[in-house]
């Protein structure tokens, strides 16, 4: 049984039919990536999984339990963490406070919080150096590290990453993708939404290609990386 199973999912933004019958699976231990153009519904899929937008048709289940109708703040407790697009860190909270909010569901379990924070600091030593700084004063790359680190603070089994490389310098993009691999190697399953299709396909096991609210292609990441249609449409090759 898949860790995450989405079946025939429909969602709307107002009257706009955003997702039109999406079906996808993520198995335990995988990195799965969703690629596609702007507005294809990649972020919407993540937002539906974490309960930010209502499911209007079909179903989402995590670890065999349905997520339909479960409020967003309860979905984190099930083991799904979402690092949103655009580095939505809490600007007037310190780095440590931001991380503590990521561990909100752990309550007063200080041991677990400290352990997770040490893990995050090991992944991103820059965050440790800046732990007393306000989130809003960090650079773009550091904010992205904080967004990912904060999502890891809840000890998730599934990490949803939305455009982690957006707007970052090439060197930082490499660092972020290496870290995603490292996080996955430590046992966290990853569902990765990316515009940078090449980098995403290189680290992913499997991939889905989305177009205007539908999944148009699916398969092994390596196979898609070699696929003629993918190369033309998403990897910028003639």
């Amino acid at each position, binding site marked *: 049984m898949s860790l995450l199973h989405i079946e025939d999912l429909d969602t709307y933004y107002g009257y706009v039919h955003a997702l039109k019958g999406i079906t996808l699976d993520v198995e335990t231990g995988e990195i799965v990536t969703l690629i596609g153009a702007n507005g294809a519904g990649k972020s919407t899929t993540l937002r539906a999984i974490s309960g930010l937008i209502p499911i209007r048709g079909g179903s989402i289940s995590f670890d065999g339990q349905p997520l339909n109708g479960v*409020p967003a703040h309860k979905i984190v407790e099930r083991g799904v963490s979402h690092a949103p697009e655009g580095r*939505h860190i*809490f*600007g007037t*909270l310190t780095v440590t406070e931001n991380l503590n*909010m990521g561990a909100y569901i752990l309550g007063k379990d200080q041991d677990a919080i400290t352990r997770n924070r040490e893990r995050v600091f090991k992944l991103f030593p820059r965050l440790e150096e800046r732990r007393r700084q306000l989130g*809003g004063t960090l650079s773009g790359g550091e904010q992205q590290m904080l967004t990912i680190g904060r999502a890891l603070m809840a000890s998730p089994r599934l990490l949803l990453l939305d455009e982690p490389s957006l707007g970052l310098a090439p060197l930082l993009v490499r660092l972020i993708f290496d870290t995603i691999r490292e996080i996955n190697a430590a046992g966290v399953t990853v569902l990765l939404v990316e515009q940078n299709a090449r980098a995403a396909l290189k680290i992913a096991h499997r991939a889905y290609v989305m177009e205007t609210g539908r999944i148009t292609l699916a398969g092994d990441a390596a196979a898609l990386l070699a696929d003629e249609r993918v190369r033309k449409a998403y990897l910028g090759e003639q």
Partner: protein
Amino acid sequence: MQLLQQIINGVTIGSFYALVALGYTMVYGVLKLINFAHGDLFMWGAYLGLTGVSLLAGLAGAGQPWMAVPVITGVLALIALTGVLVERVAYRPLRAAGRLAPIISALGVAFILESIARNVYGARWRTYPTGVAPAGGFVLAGSVRISTMQIAVLVISFLLMAGLYLFVQRTRVGTAMRAVSLDHTVSRLMGIDVDRIIALVFVIGPGLGGIAGVVVALYYGSFDFTLGWSFGLKAFIAAILGGIGNIPGAMLGGMFLGLVETLASGYISPQWKDVIAYVILIIILIFRPTGILGERVAAKV
């Protein structure tokens, strides 16, 4: 000497403004809503306190200072409950309805609370039984004196504000409150139950307002149903002055307004105190439109 006396009086009035301003600023923080009903919740604190004190004074034969303790506790609970109810009934259903509808709803609640108070307690000035507000005082130096009531006001306000500040800055739930005031969506992704945090804000803000209602009524002795509008409006101004949404700002804004008013009244003319105070206010807002402590940290985008 005269100056010290004015400062003592100004800080006392300033702490009233500050306590009420906290309610405006906290609600604005989490909902970006000016809770116009807050002044009237504060006014209801004064009336409920009147009922409580009158009841106890009637039973005991005369008003005594200890009565303030159970009365303040009871009023705190009742006004907090009312605050939560107002949020649940009048604001929460409108949360997705934009900015205008909740403001109109808040004004509606303000008029409802004010009308009920006038109908229940009458339009005339009401006076607390004597003997509840602690009498006497101390001479500090020469003609400068501080009354026992002033000391009580300052101690209560300081404890409440310090407690609130520590709660918001140091605890997990207090940090969650700050997170919610920055971003509801991301707060939900953290597992924070945003509705519960908002409800908690409507416990604390109106609760502090309720306490302030009793203490203000005890300090001045008498009041009427316009207390919420007149005094509440000044507290709202104090919140803006300090930087709305900013908790230390509300404390600072309240103190500042109280001091300016008292000094203007003492040194220039009581009739002109409002003119002077608000000219200063306008000047400050021209130079700092976001208030004294408002949005000091610019977020990088």
